[in-house]
């Protein structure tokens, strides 16, 4: 078991390889299964459901529903520097019928809400929704007559990535969280939280933020 292996990875095993060090991860298992084949291993066992979710989570065809300034960060995270195609989420499909993952990037106004709902309904099952940024997650400061306070008021949402706009690292965290949820078959909404909280973690050397309970 490598350090990077996830506890909920597919249960692929390569018994003849003696439970080698890479067998915990699906990639490692497949690689070892194919590589060890000449030595007489040649087979791997898993559950079909796990195998399918493993394939699904690394082939997310995305539909970018980009409406506002978060789109710049979306471009950044899809560009070569941060590059979420490393996570198998490479191919954009500008037809909802061919896409699995709906990225809602930016503010959704009441006038756009029917469009978003229709796009979501046109997508094929299984479909996933990622709310990119504070506006899509809960409306943010657009607390007025014109805007929808969070896309979860109209469509179910799988992962929320807060931030105005979110850092690319946060978006990648959200994508990995979604992949983890797909692997586990978990459809409860998840939220990306900071790995290290700058309000409490002194080693970050950032500006000390005051919390509500300490004021």
């Amino acid at each position, binding site marked *: 078991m490598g350090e990077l292996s996830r506890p909920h990875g597919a249960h692929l095993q390569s018994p003849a390889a003696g439970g080698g060090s890479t067998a915990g991860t699906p990639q490692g298992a497949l690689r070892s299964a194919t590589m060890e084949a000449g030595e007489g291993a040649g087979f791997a066992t898993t559950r079909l459901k796990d195998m399918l979710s493993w394939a699904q989570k690394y082939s997310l065809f995305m539909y970018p529903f980009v409406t506002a300034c978060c789109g710049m960060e979306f471009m950044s995270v899809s560009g070569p520097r941060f590059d979420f195609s490393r996570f198998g989420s490479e191919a954009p499909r500008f037809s909802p019928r061919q896409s699995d993952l709906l990225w809602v990037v930016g503010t959704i106004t*009441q*006038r756009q*809400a*029917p469009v978003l*709902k229709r796009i979501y309904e046109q997508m094929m099952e299984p479909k996933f929704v990622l709310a990119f940024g504070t506006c899509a997650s*809960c*409306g*943010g*400061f657009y*607390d*007025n*007559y*014109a805007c*929808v*306070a*969070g896309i*979860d*008021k*109209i*469509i*179910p949402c799988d992962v*929320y990535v807060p931030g105005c706009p979110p850092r690319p690292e946060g978006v990648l965290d959200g994508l990995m969280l979604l992949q983890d949820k797909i692997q586990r078959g978990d459809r*409860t*909404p*998840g*939220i990306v939280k900071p790995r290290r909280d700058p309000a409490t973690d002194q080693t970050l050397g950032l500006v000390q933020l005051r919390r*509500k309970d300490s004021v």
Partner: protein
Amino acid sequence: MAQALIDLVKQQFPGAVLASHSQHGDETLVVKPDSWHAIHQFLRDDPRAAMNMLMDLTAVDFPDQEPRFEVVTHLCSLTLGHRLRLKSRVGDEEGENVEIATLTDLWASANWLERECWDLLGVRFVGHPDLRRILLYPEFIGHPLRKDYPADEIQPLVAYREVENIEKLPPFGPDEGMAFGRQTHLRPQDES
């Protein structure tokens, strides 16, 4: 420079100019709504003014005053290089009879500006060829930039999902999300 412009309008329309001031190169005329169109036409056509550009048209809501709405235009002369702001007060305290003449026959840009002003503030421009909402949807009731429009009133086009506690869905906790000091402005008839 543009003080001469103010004097010109005052001289041309005696009695129509209610007030005027000039500060830091900002000239403003407050005129009667009856002569709104005539003054604009004069300013556009007279060679001493030559206001060939309507830069902005909007309105301001003063809920406690009567007339309640102040329609504002910003004019600019690209040839002579001067500007002028015109204001006119219309409407009673309930927000009825908010009517003023359209400027679409003078400047084509007035069309969308007046539609926006009608959409958000409910100023009716008499003679406008196509006075529809431009930013909001036709199903919207009321004019949201009026001060008596409730700050938290939304009119969704799509019905919200039927989920328990839709206002605060998980994973957001009770103290997360929007918690700004929102003031609710009640309509006058709601207060009694």
